[in-house]
């Protein structure tokens, strides 16, 4: 198939000073998007978005406009470019692209979804949340929404690789006076069998750079892939086993000072005053700096800054949320649901009538708590304000978006801000700063203030307690579900009401056969700061919907798997992953004292079906022994890293299901560290098997989909084992031996 750029989608190439061929894809800004235009360059400018470089020494460098937070994205993107280029994989490497408009990736996502570029037909599909969001702001380097491989890879990297190869072939044909069709490009060499001539890509790079860029370079058929679809070692791993990878927290600059920060403990509150003297009296302390809502102590090392901060007693104006509690938030959600002023994600047919006409009605209410991201690397940023410039080193998921936000915080233009995007010690949504997110990178704001006040570079590191208590949380939510069951055990009518909706809107979608259905929500009941948390709203609705389906199966007297399969007549891909996972897990058989639960969700274009096997210990706590996941991402680029992402996502979900819960008292987050917000460890992590179902559908995500079904699979297994239906998380609040609620510690 050919990859035909439209007038909005231009391939660029050129000759670098070193004689290298550089090829990239560019898009012109969309004139209809005012907000985007404000952030981008002048109308008509080009925005190159994916680049690869072939140097004279034959080395291939792929510039990746995404952060590295552990999903192997740079490697997967390089694989996609190298595949189409027919490069020798040993010569390929990846580098993080600068946080510059020249490397924005939002435009790729926009084009991917808008359908106004002549992208291959098989790429067409329904728009989703990330793309729509990206369309609002093109100047993003989003690493989130499982977008990198789907958008940058599919459109940018494959296209750039194919165009570069076509140009190299043409250069060789002209150079040797032979037909292009007779030249073979393979493993970074061009050869012409009849004449016996051959050259490396690098030797042809300079000549190729002078040629016009083709607009019809063919993409390879999947059957011809030799790199994509095979497991390749990740580029980032060697530096992560010898301590040499430098995360933001490891940034060191000449003359750098170290700072600790204390933020107003109540969300939305501000700093009234602070007596700086007790801190300034301590060894190594250079300065106490304040912002509107925080106190920052700058010292000659982090520990001295932390200790001096503890000596201070700031006076806060706690503001409107001073009396907020988990109980008041829950009451607010219930009151809004009772009032019933809903907006709808979807409304088809007449669900209430269908339910009224059914043989019986099943209804249940569910609740989930706030969750913190708890990335292992606490929030931190190094900033040097010098010569009117603000230079930032930090691990962020969106370097370009962060640059826009930081410029606003610093009161300067984007041109005066440089962001050095460093590897992240976990992100999971917490580090996705950009103008469309309500998350403020206060650690960056604090480092800017501290550098300005001291005239030195300053690294601000938040304590674990600040990281946990000043997070932007996965929302707490309450859901009320109601459905009818016919005498034959078919679902008739589906009403899903819930409090607090963020993204993506398709997170309430159900793929089961029920014609009369609606999902309705109330918003604005919940003043706690919100941020995207691995798989976002799918974590909420994955639990409620897939638990409720299990309740319907039980009410119908049906096996949970059979009930689901019987309602997937219009969803063959979903049916296939369920059947696959059932086979993997030996569904229908159980070891003594254990039982299995099943759940299935589609998130970010990938369908994941999971089975969890649980037991209950003498202490009344659930233990998840094994999990099985079948995942259909359409196709897979790097199978080993894809499986690692599904597994990692599942364990992230198991931690949340068993332990995860942020509670609020007097406007303050109670949990401050891993003693109160525990994590699954190696010894109690489920053994996990993953199988990939390649349906050939449009490429889906890897990082997030594995988290969505977990809590329901675990809760459904507990029902199968004990008969107790879990309608509230986390599980640590229940004694599953007695069925009693355990008071929170």
């Amino acid at each position, binding site marked *: 198939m050919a990859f035909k750029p439209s007038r909005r989608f231009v391939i660029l190439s050129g000759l670098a000073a070193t004689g290298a061929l550089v090829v990239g894809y560019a898009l012109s800004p969309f004139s209809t998007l005012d907000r985007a235009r404000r952030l981008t360059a002048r109308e008509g400018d080009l925005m190159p978005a994916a680049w690869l470089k072939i140097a004279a020494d034959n080395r291939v460098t792929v510039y990746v406009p995404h952060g590295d*937070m*552990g*999903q*192997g994205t740079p490697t997967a993107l390089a694989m996609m470019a190298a595949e189409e280029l027919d490069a020798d994989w040993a010569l390929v490497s990846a580098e993080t692209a600068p946080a510059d408009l020249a490397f924005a990736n939002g435009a790729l996502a926009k084009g991917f979804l808008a359908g106004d570029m002549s992208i291959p037909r098989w790429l067409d599909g329904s728009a989703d949340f990330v793309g729509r969001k990206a369309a609002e702001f093109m100047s993003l380097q989003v690493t989130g929404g499982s977008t990198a491989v789907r958008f940058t890879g599919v459109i940018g990297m494959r296209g750039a690789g194919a165009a570069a190869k076509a140009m190299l072939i043409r250069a060789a044909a002209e150079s040797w006076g032979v037909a292009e069709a007779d030249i073979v490009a393979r493993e970074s060499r061009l050869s012409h069998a009849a004449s016996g001539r051959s050259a490396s890509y690098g030797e042809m790079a300079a000549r190729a750079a002078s040629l016009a860029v083709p607009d019809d370079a063919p993409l390879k058929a999947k059957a011809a892939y030799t790199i994509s679809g095979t497991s390749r*070692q*990740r580029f*980032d*791993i*060697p*530096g*992560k*086993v*010898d*301590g*040499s*990878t*430098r*995360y933001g*927290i*490891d940034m*060191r600059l000449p003359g750098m000072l*170290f700072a600790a920060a204390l933020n107003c403990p109540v969300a939305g509150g501000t700093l009234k005053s602070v007596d700086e003297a007790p801190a300034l009296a301590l*060894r190594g302390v250079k300065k106490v700096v304040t912002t509107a809502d925080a106190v920052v102590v700058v010292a000659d*090392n*982090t*520990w001295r800054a932390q200790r001096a901060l503890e000596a201070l007693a700031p006076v806060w104006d706690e503001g409107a949320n001073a009396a907020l509690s988990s109980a008041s938030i829950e009451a607010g959600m219930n009151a809004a649901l009772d009032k019933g002023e809903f907006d709808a994600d979807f409304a088809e047919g007449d669900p209430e009538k269908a339910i009224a006409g059914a043989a019986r009605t099943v209804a249940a209410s569910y609740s989930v708590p706030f969750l913190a991201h*708890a*990335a*292992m*690397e*606490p929030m931190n940023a190094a900033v040097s304000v010098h010569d009117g410039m603000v230079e930032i080193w930090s691990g962020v998921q969106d370097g370009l978006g962060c640059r826009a936000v930081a410029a606003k915080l610093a009161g300067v233009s984007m041109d005066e801000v440089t962001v050095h995007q460093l*590897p*992240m*010690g*976990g*992100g*999971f949504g917490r580090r996705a700063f950009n103008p469309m997110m309500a998350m403020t990178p206060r650690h960056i704001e604090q480092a800017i203030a501290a550098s300005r006040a001291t005239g030195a570079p300053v690294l601000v*590191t938040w*304590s*674990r307690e600040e990281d946990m208590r000043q997070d932007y949380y996965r929302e707490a939510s309450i859901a009320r579900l109601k459905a009818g069951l016919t005498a034959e055990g078919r679902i008739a009518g589906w009403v899903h009401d819930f409090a607090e909706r963020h993204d993506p809107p398709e997170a309430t979608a159900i793929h089961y056969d029920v014609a009369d259905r609606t999902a309705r929500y109330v918003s604005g009941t919940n003043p706690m700061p919100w941020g995207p948390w691995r798989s976002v709203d799918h974590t909420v609705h994955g639990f409620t919907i897939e638990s409720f389906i299990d309740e319907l199966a039980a009410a119908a007297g049906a096996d949970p798997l059979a009930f689901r399969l019987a309602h997937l007549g219009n969803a063959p891909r979903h049916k296939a992953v369920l059947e696959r996972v059932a086979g993997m897990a030996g569904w229908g058989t159980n070891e003594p004292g254990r039982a299995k639960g099943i759940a299935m969700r589609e998130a970010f274009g990938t369908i994941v079906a999971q089975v969890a096997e649980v037991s209950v210990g003498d202490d009344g706590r659930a233990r998840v022994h094994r999990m099985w996941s079948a995942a259909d991402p359409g196709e897979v680029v790097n199978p*080993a*890293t894809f499986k*690692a*992402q599904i*597994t*990692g996502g*599942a*364990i*992230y979900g198991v931690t949340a299901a068993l332990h995860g819960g942020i509670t609020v008292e007097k406007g303050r987050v109670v949990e401050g*560290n*891993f*003693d109160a917000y525990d*994590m*699954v*460890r*190696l*010894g109690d*992590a489920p*053994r*996990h098997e993953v199988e990939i179902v390649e349906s050939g559908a449009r490429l889906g995500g890897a990082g997030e989909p594995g988290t969505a079904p977990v809590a329901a699979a675990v809760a459904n297994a507990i029902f199968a084992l004990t008969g107790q239906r879990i309608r509230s998380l986390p599980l640590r609040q229940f004694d599953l031996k007695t069925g009693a609620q355990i008071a929170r510690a």
Partner: protein
Amino acid sequence: MVTLTVNGAQHELDVEPDMPLLWALRDVLNLTGTKYGCGIAACGACTVLVDGQAVRSCSIAAADLAGSSIVTIEGLKTGEALHKLQAAWIEAQAPQCGYCQSGQIMAAAALLAEIPRPSDADIDAAMTNICRCGSYEEIRAAIHIAAASA
């Protein structure tokens, strides 16, 4: 003055008696491979070897370690040659974000020093560090690979 022996080299540090080893390593000696995760010995990101034992460096004072031999992730290589655990970590493609892996590898080094061929149960009991990315399967595999490579 505190005298510390880190990765075979002696250092004189002008730090307070209660400064945790973690911050002496990171902010004074600039050995940033050892990570800060929690400060309360709950996560293990800061694990180093002290006289061969795995120790969470955030919760032990540097001043108490005069005369001890401290090994950090930076001291695990022999010259440029990777320690067998590091090679196994690459073979198993264990890290995701990688932030906890220094501590995981140091905990594994202490385990192998005590039990050269650990069982799954031995690994379960010894490897209590948090990996938020959930790379536990790969860590387990890497330890078995390293143990088998003797």
